[in-house]
């Protein structure tokens, strides 16, 4: 299963080893991990709670991976996204991509993250000593995703 939603933490080495699976076609492995920062506005963050829309989440992430596979010459891709209550420095998300050459792996990894940020149904709620608030979407994330609509795929 190339897409997983889970409360549990993940181990980068274990996940990338499974993704590569000893496949000698793979010459490049790119990975991105998103982690929880310790500041929410001006107050120290206590917890970050991740909510999602079961069913649609898996569907949208699978669609994003499929787009990446059609645009770049990659061997495989993996997305793990955690949900539930997280604390500062915890891991949130892992994207891993394997390919023959680094250009495709780097580009596809960045593309999957940019599309995940704007299309996958996750929401963050920050809790500080002052209370809880839902995180607002950022225009810079939309701009990062939009740039893939005009850029030709690299290495293809």
């Amino acid at each position: 299963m190339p897409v997983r939603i889970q409360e549990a933490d993940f181990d980068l080495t274990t996940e990338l080893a499974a993704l590569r699976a000893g496949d000698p076609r793979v010459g490049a492995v790119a990975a991105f991990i998103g982690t929880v920062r310790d500041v929410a506005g001006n107050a120290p963050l206590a917890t970050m709670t991740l909510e999602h829309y079961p069913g649609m989440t898996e569907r949208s992430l699978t669609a994003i991976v499929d787009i990446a596979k059609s645009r770049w010459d990659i061997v495989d891709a993996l997305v793990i996204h955690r949900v539930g209550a997280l604390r500062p420095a915890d891991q949130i998300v892992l994207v891993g991509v394997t390919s023959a050459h680094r250009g495709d792996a780097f580009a596809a990894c960045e593309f999957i993250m940019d599309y995940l940020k704007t299309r996958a149904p996750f929401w963050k709620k920050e809790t500080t000593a002052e209370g809880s608030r839902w995180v607002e979407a950022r225009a810079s994330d939309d701009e990062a995703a939009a740039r893939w609509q005009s850029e030709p795929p690299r290495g293809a």
Partner: protein
Amino acid sequence: MRDNPVDTLTLVYLARLRDAFGASGEAVRPPADVATIASLRAWLAARGGVWATELAPERAVRFAVNHDIAQPETAVRPGDEVALFPPVTGG
């Protein structure tokens, strides 16, 4: 296509909208002329109060029909699951 009665729409409210509406969803029977996301939004906003506030035209609200992102012109039919949520903030 879903396992709810064929004459109702299943609405799902997520994240901030669930907090605002005070419910995680409901089954509704809109009039026959509510056939698109745009008309469903207007019909729900006409309830007034927090519905009018959250679904006002200038507020960013996303919709999904049967787990696919929808546009204002997307059709809604009895039996569909329609989700309402704020812009996503994962990753």
